[in-house]
Every structure is written in structure tokens, then in C-alpha cells.
């Protein structure tokens, strides 16, 4: 085997290990169904993949075939995807204990989706982009509708499937148009061709459709309509994965597209994107205001957060890449905390006719007086989502505002401030609900031993990390700075 092949194999080994884990777990299920064993195998496989990723850190940029590239950015994305998947595994194990149907297949779906995410962050060609997105989304249909006897979950799965199919159609059509004009599907070559052909209408239509397809996945306004329903209906661990790993992977591929295709550097593109960013943050925040359902609220809040993130893409210079990195890290940690608590309170799964999870806000009333530490996690997550100092979320918001100020994009900065001010209202409402004590309300509770469960420990760890990175963000900044540099 030649040296180059060895390097390539080494670089891509995390992806291979995740795929191997899928097979191992599948064989283990075929041999004997054991819920805990499946969860452990999954976790071990993900950890080994994570180790391989860290081990390959010093390899630099490695071209693995002409469609995949493993560089610092893709390793960064890989770490985020694998970490969130691991958190989902621990949460899922506790959650699915109460589920009467087959439980083990959930891990197969989760692992496949994680593999899709890994492909996506390494994509540098339209084929891998498409392959990654589909591999990421298809298992998600299954995961979202996993507890299919609940109407909510089934609705959520089907809704996501139908809209994903629409997005895929846009994506494919866009690619086809791009190929028809330029004759290539490679990101870098596309970039060159785009600058050569200038403003060919077919080309622009193709790029636009491509963006529409990706915007669906990121639930950017006006393609956000599916988000609240899917978030609300899906089982806790599946929603957690959708909100973290899936969004991170898609956003990173979008970032890579922006970096390599020069056509997006034209001014009117920026204005259009800036407009979309403003609309996204305002719409997300405004619609979240009146929600009485925590998962829906978090769904709308995620729309707003991707609006903030778009600011970095619009600016696309100076601190932009670093900002994306920092914001994604803080967003993933915070979201894991928030959804982790929702999932823990809903664990173990209880069969109902409607939506099984504890998602109405009044279920959380007075949680502090029963589960103080779990509430502390939720409070920290809410503060971090709102961008209050001494939480990681503030560092993210600091970067977003800094990148806007640096580029003198005052409208964007102003909308970020306005959006945050609106956002405070509903984050505070969630927070204070946790502390209010009113007996006699219908409520659900985490199990007594939640803190000793793997899921509980992960959630506590995530909250600690959110605080620590808020107090001392230097390690995170150095890491991301190195990746972006």
C-alpha cells in the first residue's frame, strides 16, 4: 500500500470506524437483542472514532479521493458531530427504557446519521454533499417517527420526510443546473467557473436552488415552517440529534461552499443573505414569544440562532470563520443542555396517544424545588441561549456582534441586538417557570436516579462546560482560531 493511501485511510478512519460500528451493532442485534449492550457498543464505537479523530489531528489537510477532503475544518465538525451523537446515545438509553417496541434499532439509525454528518463535513464535491445530506436525513425520518404509536412522533417523522424530499428536489435541480452550465461538480472548480461565467441566469438559478435546499435543513426563514412541529413531536433524543449534529454538519458544508465559490462574494448576494439573516432572527424570535410548549419554543429559538450565525456568512471576512466555529461550539453545548433536560424529564418513555414528551411548559413548573441541579442545568442553558455573560452563549454572541461591528454592518448588528432583546422575554419566561411553585399542576419529573445515569452525567457535564467556557473561553478560542487559521 502506498504512503498516500495509508495517509488517506488514516485520515478517513473515524468515518470508517463509525460505519464499522453500524455493522457491529447490527450483527449484535441479529445475534441477541440487548438494549444496554447495543447502547454500550454504540458508545464505544463513537469513542474510538473520536479518538481516531484526535489522533489524526496532526495530519493536516489530506485529500481522500477527489470528493472528500479531511482538513482541520472537517475534523472540527467531526468532533462536534461525534460529541453530540454520544450525548444522544446516553440520553436515548435512558429514554428508550420505557419503550415497549424494539429499542436497539434506534442506535443503528443514530450511527448512520452520524456517519452522514461526518461525510458532510468533509465534502468538497456535490456528490458527497448530496450523499452526506441524504445519509444524514434518511435515518432521521426513522428516528423522529421511532415511537410511531404516538401521533406527534409519527406526524413529526412524516412531515420531516416530505419536506426533506422537497429540499432534496431543490438540491438536485440546483446541482443539475450548475453542472449544465459549468460541467463540473467540484466545489473549487465550480467557484472558478462561477467567476468566469459571471451572472449567467441559469447559474444563478442553480446556486439559488442549492441554497434553498440547504436552507430547508437549517430552517432558515422562509423555509422554517417544519421546524416547530418536528421539534415538538419527535422523541427527545431524536430531536436533540436534529438540533445539534445535523444542523452543525449542514452549516459547515454551507460554510465550505461559501469559502470556495467566488460568485457568492458579489455584493447583491451579501445584501440578499443579510436580509434573510435579519428576517430569520426576527421571525424566529417573534414566533417564539407566545409559545407555551418548550420544545416548540426551542425550535423557534434555533431558527433565530441560525439567523445570528448567518451574519458571519454574510460578512465572510476577518473574524467570520472563527465566529462560525465559536458559535457552533457554544450552540451545540447549550442545545445539548436544554434538550438533555427535556429528554431526562421525559425519560423513561411513557406511551400516550398524543405527544409523549414533557414538552408543555407547565410540566416544568416548580422543577427547581424538586430537582434543583437539573433545573440549574436548564437555567444555565437558557441563560446561555440568551447570551448572558459568564456562559458560553455570551462568547458566541460577543463574536457575532464583533464580526458585524468589524465589517460595519450596522443593520445586522442592530437586528442581532433587537432579536436578543425579544429573545430574552421567552428565555426568561422559561427560567422563571422552573422556579415558580404552584401545587396542583399536572407535571412530570425526571427519575430519582437521573444524576447517576450516563445521560444525567452528560447533561451535568455539558452545563459545567458551558459555565467554564463562559468564565475562561481561551482554550476554545485558541482551538477554533487554529482551525480557522
Amino acid at each position, binding site marked *: 500500500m502506498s504512503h498516500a493511501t495509508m495517509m488517506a485511510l488514516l485520515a478517513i478512519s473515524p468515518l470508517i470506524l463509525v460505519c464499522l460500528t453500524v455493522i457491529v451493532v447490527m450483527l449484535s442485534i441479529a445475534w441477541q437483542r440487548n438494549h444496554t449492550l447495543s447502547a454500550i457498543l454504540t458508545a464505544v464505537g463513537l469513542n474510538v472514532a473520536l479518538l481516531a479523530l484526535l489522533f489524526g489531528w496532526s495530519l493536516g489537510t489530506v485529500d481522500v479521493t477527489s470528493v472528500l477532503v479531511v482538513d482541520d475544518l472537517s475534523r472540527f465538525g467531526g468532533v462536534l458531530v461525534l460529541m453530540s451523537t454520544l450525548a444522544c446515545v446516553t440520553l436515548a438509553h435512558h429514554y428508550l427504557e420505557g419503550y415497549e417496541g424494539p429499542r436497539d434499532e434506534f442506535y443503528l439509525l443514530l450511527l448512520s446519521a452520524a456517519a452522514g454528518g461526518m461525510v458532510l463535513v468533509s465534502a468538497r464535491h456535490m456528490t458527497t454533499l448530496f450523499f452526506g445530506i441524504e445519509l444524514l436525513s434518511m435515518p432521521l425520518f426513522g428516528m423522529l417517527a421511532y415511537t410511531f404509536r404516538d401521533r406527534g412522533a409519527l406526524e413529526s417523522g412524516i412531515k420531516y420526510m416530505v419536506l426533506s424530499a422537497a429540499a432534496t428536489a431543490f438540491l438536485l435541480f440546483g446541482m443539475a443546473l450548475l453542472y449544465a452550465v459549468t460541467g463540473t461538480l467540484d466545489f473549487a472548480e465550480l467557484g472558478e467557473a462561477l467567476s468566469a461565467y459571471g451572472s449567467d441566469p441559469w447559474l444563478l438559478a442553480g446556486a439559488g436552488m442549492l441554497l434553498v435546499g440547504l436552507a430547508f435543513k437549517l430552517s432558515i426563514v422562509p423555509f422554517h415552517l417544519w421546524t416547530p412541529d418536528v421539534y415538538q413531536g419527535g422523541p427527545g433524543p431524536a430531536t436533540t440529534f436534529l438540533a445539534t449534529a445535523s444542523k452543525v454538519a449542514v452549516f459547515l458544508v454551507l460554510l465550505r461552499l461559501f469559502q470556495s465559490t467566488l460568485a457568492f462574494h458579489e455584493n447583491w448576494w451579501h445584501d440578499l443573505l443579510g436580509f434573510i439573516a435579519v428576517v430569520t432572527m426576527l421571525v424566529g424570535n417573534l414566533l417564539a414569544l407566545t409559545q407555551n410548549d418548550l420544545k416548540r419554543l426551542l425550535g423557534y429559538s434555533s431558527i433565530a440562532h441560525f439567523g445570528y450565525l448567518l451574519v458571519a456568512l454574510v460578512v465572510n471576512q476577518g473574524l467570520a470563520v472563527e465566529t462560525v466555529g465559536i458559535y457552533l461550539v457554544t450552540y451545540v453545548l447549550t442545545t445539548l443542555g436544554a434538550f438533555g433536560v427535556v429528554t431526562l424529564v421525559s425519560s423513561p418513555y411513557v406511551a400516550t396517544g398524543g405527544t409523549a414528551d414533557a414538552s408543555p411548559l407547565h410540566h416544568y413548573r416548580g422543577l427547581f424545588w424538586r430537582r434543583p441541579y437539573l433545573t440549574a442545568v436548564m437555567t444555565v442553558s437558557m*441563560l446561555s441561549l440568551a447570551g*448572558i455573560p459568564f456562559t458560553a452563549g*455570551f462568547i458566541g454572541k460577543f463574536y457575532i*456582534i464583533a464580526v458585524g*461591528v468589524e465589517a460595519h454592518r450596522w443593520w445586522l448588528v442592530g437586528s442581532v*441586538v433587537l432579536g436578543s*432583546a425579544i429573545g430574552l422575554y421567552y428565555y426568561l419566561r422559561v427560567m422563571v417557570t422552573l422556579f415558580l411553585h404552584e401545587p396542583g399542576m399536572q407535571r412530570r419529573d425526571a427519575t430519582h436516579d437521573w444524576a447517576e445515569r450516563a445521560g444525567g452525567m452528560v447533561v451535568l457535564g455539558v452545563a459545567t462546560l458551558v459555565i467554564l467556557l463562559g468564565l*475562561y473561553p481561551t482554550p476554545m478560542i485558541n482551538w477554533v482560531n487554529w482551525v480557522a487559521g
Partner: protein
Amino acid sequence: MTLVWLILIPFIGGLLCWQAERFGDQAPRWIALGTMLLELAMVLGLWVGSDFSLPAEGAANAWTLEWQADWIPRFGIQVHLAIDGLSLLMIALTGLLGAMAVICSWKEIVQRVGFFHLNLLWILGGVVGVFLAIDLFLFFLFWEMMLVPMYFLIALWGHSGSRGSSRIGAATKFFIYTQASGLLMLIAILGLVFAHHGATGEYTFAYADLLDTPLSETTAWWLMLGFFVAFAVKLPVVPLHGWLPDAHAQAPTAGSVDLAGILLKTAAYGMLRFALPLFPEASQAFAPVAMTLGLIGIFYGAILACGQQDLKRLIAYTSISHMGFVLIGIYAGTELALQGVVALMVAHAFSAAGLFILSGQLYERLHTRDMRQMGGLWGRIRGLPGFALVFVAASLGLPGTANFVGEFMVMFGSFGVAPWIVVIASAGLILAAVYSLFIMQRVYYGPPREETPLAGLDRRETVLLFGIVALVVFFGIYPQPLLDTSAGAMQIVQQSVQQAGAMMGGAQ
């Protein structure tokens, strides 16, 4: 390290209070009181042991004590703490009012005592951080951070207000007002930092470095406005005051004491420390507007105070009126006016705290803050009305109280700069007399509604009130210690204003 401990002690004390709840309700109270007394003792020790005389010629700032450590090297952000006469006075005030807040909620707060004191002490820790931080990033962090425990204090232990306004609504309003305006300040800070980066090629958030950032006139103007709006919301300056009456009316007594006594002062401190020295020319140009706003505040606050039925709302509006004087003094920029501002801030902290504590004690006895339900209390409560008379007199600025010293110095110092504003503002003093007499008349005189006597002041309440009265009178008769301590810091502010004025005069 003393400075770090000054910040850490309230935070650690708060955590201890929370955990001490399992040993009964008394434990958190004593721990909180001990923490605040320790804090106060440390500051007083610093005060006695240090020299706050005038800074050496040419020195930009005279810090008595300084402490710094690298924090986020990527942007040149440091944990940089420093203390001078102004911050020392403010921290001493924080310690003192903190202890008072603990004492006055001794019987008022009976639910979740530990968590209450956690929030109370964390507010105070955040405030101390604001007074000590001279790295702009750190300053902003503390500035925003102290809102969270204050939010909880109002939202969880507040009183549900009259006319359907809820305590959660009031708390949310307070939080959104201050947080959103804080973000404007963050934008201004970042604008300043990037301007400095553009000029020198390095990122820094250090106060001393940013002081001489070359700025174009328009940039300086906008950045100054960003700072001003954030401080103006907290002070509050009139069009931005919407949160204050609700927050005060709904907050528990300790919350009101902290809010009026210390949190409002962080805004004045911010103007003195940051807005004026960082943008002297722009501030100088803005001064007429700011002083007019102050004037509006004086009258608006006083007139609305006269029409209130809710005792705490009334006191809240008088705060707006008093802060109008502070704003005029700050933007007059003469040394006498600035010294007057310091005296007035300290005096208002005492008199407002005293009035809020009294209204808390009335509420404990009558279970209402509505003045229509009161009247004729002079004969029914032993001791309390007498104290009320003293604080009301202080609030209207009667000679012999510290408030008189402050208001007089502000007016005297501003007269040379803006005579007409001072003339009109003096008319506001008449309104102060009117609302002060309203309080006495409606609450304590007139026909009593019932004849049954109410519980008199117990020893805890008497000692607390006597302490405040003593301070008000002492600083009214002998304000020199205050003025000596803040002289150095105020002179630096005054010099930067003077230079800006000279430069603008030269340009014209």
C-alpha cells in the same frame, strides 16, 4: 489579591447561604450578614490604610491598588481590577447597603431563604465587580451579570402589584430594558476596540489604552451615545425610565434598597469612569442635551411622584428626580459639581434606602402600600413616623442632611457652566418639598382609619434606622471625608472635560 477577594467574597458567601438552608432559616441570614460585614470591613480597612490624595502630575490615573492577569489573549482581554477613591466609596456603600438589605429582609422573607440570599449576595458581587473592573470586557460582563439575580429577586420574592401588573412582568421589563441597552454598550465597546485596532494593530480592552484612541468626530459621537444609552437606562434618564417604577413597586424591600441605593449608582459611576473620559469632546458637545434631559427628569419625577397612591412607586419617582440632579452635575463637569455628584449619590443611597426600608416595615404591619389605606399613623406606630420625618427631610434636601450638601454643590458647581439650567432646576426643589410633605401628610397625619395601635419598632429595626439617620446627619454636617476620598478621581475627570473644552474652544 485584595481586589479579587472583594469580588469573590459575596459570590462565595451566596453559595454558602444556599447550602446553609438545610440548617434552618436563620443560618443563611447570619452568613449573609457576616459576608457583607466582612466585605465592609475589608473596604474600610483599605480606606484607612490608603492614600487618596491627588495624583502625580501627568499621571493618567491614580489607582490605589491594581491587579491584573491575562484572560483572553486573543483579544487582549485581561482580568484587570483597580480601585481609586471613587470606586472605594461606591464599594463601601455597597457593603453597607448590602448589610442593610440583609437586615431589613430578616422577617420579610420567609420562603426559600437560602436561595434569596444567594441572589442578594450575587447582585452585590456583580456590583462590586462593576466598580472594580477597568477592562471594558470585564466591566460589561459584570454589568450584565448582575441583572440575572436581580431578576430572580423581583420575580420570585416580589409583591404582586396593584392593577394587575405582575411581579414577573416587572422583572422581565427591567431585564429587557437593561440587557438590550447593555448590548448597545457592547457594540460601542467593540467599535472603540476595533478603532483602536485599526490605529495600532493590536486588540485591547484595557481602559488606559483605549483612553487615547484616535477617533473621528462622528465615530466618537456614536460610540459615546452607545455608552450613554446604557447608563441612561440604568440611571434612569427620563425617556428610558419605564422599568423603574414597576421594578421598585414589585420588588421586595431588599431589592428596592439595592436597586435605589446601589444599582442606580453604577450608571452614574459608569458615566464618570467611562463615558466622560473615553469621549471627552463628544461628551462636551452632548452636555447641553444631557443636562436638559436631567432637567426634564427632575420635574417629571417630582410631578409624577405627587400623583402616586402607591408609597413605593412614589419613592421610585423621587429617585428619578434626584438622579436628574446627578446627571446635571456629571455633565457640568466642574470639580465642585462632580464632587457634589459623589456626595449626592451617597446621600441619596441612604435616604432612599431609609424610605424603602420604612415602606417595607409599613407593609409588614399594614399589608398594603396604598397610601389611601394609610393616614393617621403617627399615633399608632411607636418610633417609625419619627424616622420617616428625618428621611423625608433628607430627601427634600434640608440643610443638615447629606442630601443638602450634594444638591447644593451640584447647583453651585453647575451655575458657572449652565446658569439657566440651574435656575430652573432649583424650582424643582420646591416640588421636592411638595411630594415630601405629601408623604408625611397622607401616611402619618390626618384622621386615623383605626384606633388600634400597631406593633412598634423592634430592636433590629431601631438599630438599623438609627444607623442610617446617623450617617445622613454625619455626612450632612461633616462631608469632608467623602470629598477628600473622591477628590483625586474627580479631578482626573474634570481635567479631561476641561481639556476637551479647551480644544473645542480652540477649534472654534
